[in-house]
């Protein structure tokens, strides 16, 4: 982990963000990420500035390839940014700081479903009995109790994704990073898990960063939606979602303000994708 707890190079602006009044959970300033590989340079993120408060549910939307995954990987420490500043705050140190639901297939093929879900707890040396209960609970939530002893190659695509979600939930972190977690799920499973996610979030004051391509989903779930521009990705719009809670996927569409928000996000996104396409064709 490339983290430091003491770092002299903190800009005044950054320090400002950390004023006692409101310590943000995640603060990024001029965050840039450039990939250099095989002689090609791809600027994935360009000057991302964002402050995410503790307990916020934040959705990230943006065209394919704009750097959403990259941003999450930098936050999680799996990737280092090339310039700019990034500061995370760990409020409750009895809990792990963050867990990620990866976009790719990421459950260990050599572990059973139950062992996969248990992984984070095992790493934290949670007592065995507690682990077993937690695993059972989350397997039930994602509807895979029957498959606890199965190996990943015996599961369908959506089932694998659900294992990955259960693994992150079971770890009970302060920050949940979720990269298109429900993309491979049918509407019903998706609704069930969205509900579960909201319940967990409300109960335990988690900060959630949630990547999705569905505007509906973003509006159902989040307090705040970040729209990213096409590559090089930066924040284009930071949209407040002040819809009342609790929300349901069906009711929300008819709630006041929904149509407007939906419209606005569509607009922002459409511009971006069209722009992305255009520059590509011209290049």
């Amino acid at each position, binding site marked *: 982990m490339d983290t430091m707890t003491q770092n002299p190079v903190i800009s005044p602006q950054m320090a400002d963000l950390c004023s006692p009044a409101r310590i943000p959970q995640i603060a990024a300033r001029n965050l840039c990420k450039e990939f250099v590989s095989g002689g090609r340079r791809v600027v994935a993120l360009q000057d991302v500035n964002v402050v995410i408060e503790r307990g916020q549910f934040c959705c990230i939307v943006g065209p394919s390839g704009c750097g959403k995954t990259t941003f999450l*990987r930098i936050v999680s420490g*799996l990737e280092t940014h090339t310039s700019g500043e990034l500061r995370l705050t760990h409020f409750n140190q009895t809990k792990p700081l963050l*867990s990620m639901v*990866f976009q*790719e297939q*990421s459950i260990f093929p050599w*572990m059973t479903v139950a062992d996969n879900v248990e992984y984070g707890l095992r790493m934290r040396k949670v007592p065995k009995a507690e682990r077993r209960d937690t695993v059972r609970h989350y397997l039930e939530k994602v509807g895979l109790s029957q498959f606890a002893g199965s190996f990943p*190659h015996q599961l369908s695509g959506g089932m694998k994704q659900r294992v990955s979600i259960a693994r992150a939930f079971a770890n009970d972190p302060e920050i949940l990073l979720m990269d298109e977690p429900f993309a491979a799920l049918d509407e019903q499973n998706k609704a069930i898990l969205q509900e579960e996610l909201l319940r967990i979030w409300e109960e335990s004051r988690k900060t959630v960063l949630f990547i999705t391509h569905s505007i509906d989903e973003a509006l159902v779930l989040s307090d705040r939606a970040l729209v990213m521009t096409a590559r090089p990705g930066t924040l284009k719009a930071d949209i407040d979602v002040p819809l009342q809670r609790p929300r349901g996927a069906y009711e929300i569409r008819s709630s006041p303000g929904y149509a407007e928000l939906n419209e606005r996000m569509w607009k922002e996104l459409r511009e971006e994708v069209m722009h992305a396409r255009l520059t590509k064709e011209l290049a």
Partner: protein
Amino acid sequence: MSTPNVLPVPGPAPLVEVRASSRLVVRKVSPETIERVVAVLAPVLLLGLWEALTRSNVLDQRFFPAPSSIVDTFYHMTFKMPWDNSLAYHVLISLSRALIGFLLGAIPAIAIGAIMGLVPIVRAAVQPIVGALFPIPKVAILPLLMLVFGIGEESKWAIIAIGVFFQVLIATAAGVSNIDRIYLDVGANFKAGRIATYTTIAFPGALPMIVAGLRLGWGSSLLLLVTAEMVSSQSGVGFLIWRAWQLMTVEDMYVGLVVIACIGITSFWLIDALESRLLPWKRR
């Protein structure tokens, strides 16, 4: 009712493919059974070929006795000898030597190999040293081994262990560095410590390759029995082969070789079985 599969329509005749179901394909025996039979048949055929070659005098019987002609010697060596000179005794001695040497070589190799696979800087440091030491012939370091381990069992184990070590090391390092990065990312994300990364990701993830390394290592440890038992030994299959070679008692030598070959076949079967035990998660 007989239905033509290809029916007349205008244009090029469409081709109708009927996908056979696995129940439709008449299979009296499962593919696993066939494989098992083939696995037993193959060495038998090899033996048959050898018999045929010697019988037809393509191979000179004086130097390459037919398998059938060593049966007698085999019987004699097994049953007509006092226990401490019988074939079974020598086989046991050799097996224990091979096994000890194998373990002494393989266990550190897996550990170091995995670290090499995980940490590029370690790999950069160890790789050239492996390159330098691997091709050093055992015979050249014999004085060193004798100096360090004496001329008893320990130096024999050492000879075998060194041979096994490099084989398993290289295979393990390759296997570990070939693990999909996403799994290591997951480990990092869940704050898996060094040991945990090792035991829960690197080791199981590289296991197919490690098994291949063990296969190579075990083969080498059998191969090295002769080298090891050449030096100051009065027992073991390697010694039998070596002695027979020196005395030009070709039949005795071939009994030794056949025994080594049988051990090889059996242990490869066992490793196969072990592999499918250890890797229940592999799609086959």
